[in-house]
């Protein structure tokens, strides 16, 4: 592997050039060999793989969070249903009839109807 520490300047005046073209170009003196390329590609694949794994793990972690929330929702819904049933039982006709309030009510002696 050889390294060139300076960039090289190539004048394009020597060749034919047209308007609106850059008159100079820079070419890096750093040349990468085939082993470096392979290592770099492998590194990039590894990084991408790690990124994928990180995201997949994060998504799975969210699944567990979602499951916890689902369970909480289900538990709260069950509690809500139980409360609704309790409410229905407490306001059922039989319960109302046998309530303490109902026991002490009396029938009116006479009822006047508005005609």
């Amino acid at each position, binding site marked *: 592997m050889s390294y060139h520490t300076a960039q090289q300047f190539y004048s394009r005046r020597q060749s034919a050039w047209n308007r609106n073209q850059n008159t100079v170009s820079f070419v890096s003196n750093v040349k990468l060999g085939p082993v470096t390329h392979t290592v770099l590609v492998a590194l990039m694949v590894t990084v991408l793989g790690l990124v994928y794994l990180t995201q997949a793990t994060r998504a*799975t972690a969210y699944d*567990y969070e979602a499951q916890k929330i689902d369970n909480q929702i289900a538990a709260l819904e069950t509690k809500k249903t139980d409360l609704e049933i309790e409410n*229905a039982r407490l306001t059922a006709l039989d319960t109302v009839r046998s309530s303490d309030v109902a026991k002490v009510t009396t029938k009116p002696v006479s009822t006047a109807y508005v005609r």
Partner: protein
Amino acid sequence: MELSLQKGSRSRILAGLLLLVIAIFIARLFYLQIIQHDEYVRQAEAEQIRPLIIPAKRGEIYAYDSGNLVPLVMNQTVYTLFADPVMVTDSTKALKVIREVAGGNLRPKTEDLLARKDTRYQILGTKLTRKQAELIKKESLLGIGFQEVAQRIYPEGGLAAQTLGFVNDGGTGQYGVEEALNERLVGHDGLLESVTDVSGVPLTIGDKNVNKPAKNGDNIVLTIDRNVQAYAEKALASGLKKLGAQNGSVIIMDPQNGDIMAMANVPTYNPKDFTKVKDAAVFNNNVINSPYEPGSDIKTFTIATGIDKGVIKPTSTYNNLDYIKVADRTIVNAFKGETGVITMQHALNYSLNTGMVTVAQRLGDGNRITRGARDTMYNYFHDRFRFGQLTGIELAGEQRGTIIPPTEVEGNAVRYSNMTFGQGMDLTMLQVASAFCSLVNGGTYYQPTIIAGNVSDSGEFVEAEQKRVYPNTIQPETSKTIHTMIRKARQAFYADYDTPGYDIGGKTGTSQTIRNGKYIDDETIATYLGYGGNSKPRYVIMVEASGKGQNLQGNLHALPIFTDISNWLIDYLKLQPKG
């Protein structure tokens, strides 16, 4: 220099072996990954992807209470407590905990069940509440688990039992609304199919996940008012007890739209305990599925037919001899002594059979119940009043009843003479009450209904589709006339029973019963059919009382129950007296 392995050298053999092994590996991998690809994908998916059924919630059933909705049937999750005896390490502690928390829900000899180490599944208790299950779960008992089970809850107990029906252990509705509207109530289960971890938690990885939400069953709202229903049941039960009748039924309808406000039967049951019922007959709603000969209630329809056809008026007269001949038969009155020239109103007041047969004769040539007269009666009874036709009520087990057309040999003059006073045909109370509504409401037959609508998932009430309406069963003028005649028929004897200031009318019925094809004298069915209201009829009530070997009379055994309910309804509906 070119390097090469010498022929037959060990290195060359080793290289050959390695090549062979690699070739075998490649072949095997080709077989597994290419040829057997689908099979292994299927196996992997079967292991990783778990289908979870999301159970649909069965619809609840509501009734009205002075315009507000109240639940009659709800759902509750209860828990079945089970054990894997092999996994239970500390059975003493397990027994102590579950006895303390759910002693009343346990099966007998729980310790024996836990000791059965040759089995892997034993149900220890049923119908545990959520709280009980949570308390046991807290103890983290090894080998003890729970299964969720949905059960129906009836906050009002046995109210409207025959109307509601029940849900059997298989989750299918039986009898009443539960059976008739099972498809609507049951909903559709959802499906969650995804890759899960070892503990069954669904994960979002994979590209074949399915999430189909469950569609809960419809929450049905009945037209029934729970206060009216409760009072009807109470009045029926106490009335029958007081009057000594064994069985009875009541239906209360709104004559202005066909809504059923209450439907009650005695004896009855509590749907919660349907498995404890010994006589399955109590599941039947006799209002809709026990056709019987309706008896004298039908006289109101005969008179209405005669008036509508213009052959009689309330003041029309005939000579009552207490008997009348039809073909080779002699028909007599149950109530005798009102002989001489009397009006049709008089005949209705005293429920005279001769008067009704006279109406049928006048529909013919004046002396005979001709084919024309029978055709007219059939047209009114069957086609207009819809006797002998299913009403289409949204309840299971409705019966059609029987009415013989004049085209049949049995549809002769004798049968049609009997039909004028409610014999010779079988009808349900619902058919009679629905048709009676049209007599007093101006002549419109509203298809009876028990469904007011449903409550959407967002809690909004959605009104049910309009039921069928059949106008002009009789002309409006005829309706006015028969309305007045029915009021007079009640006022003739029972005016003092009613709350003053209201328009209340009715007709008694006492039907003979048939045993082995013959009418018997020692068993009769008592009925009372009437309406009440102020400026217009606001309710129609029909009461029936019967009993094996019991001789019951409409005026003695059914009328008092009608009166009780009618007077209560006037207060409950806050009806203003007529001006």
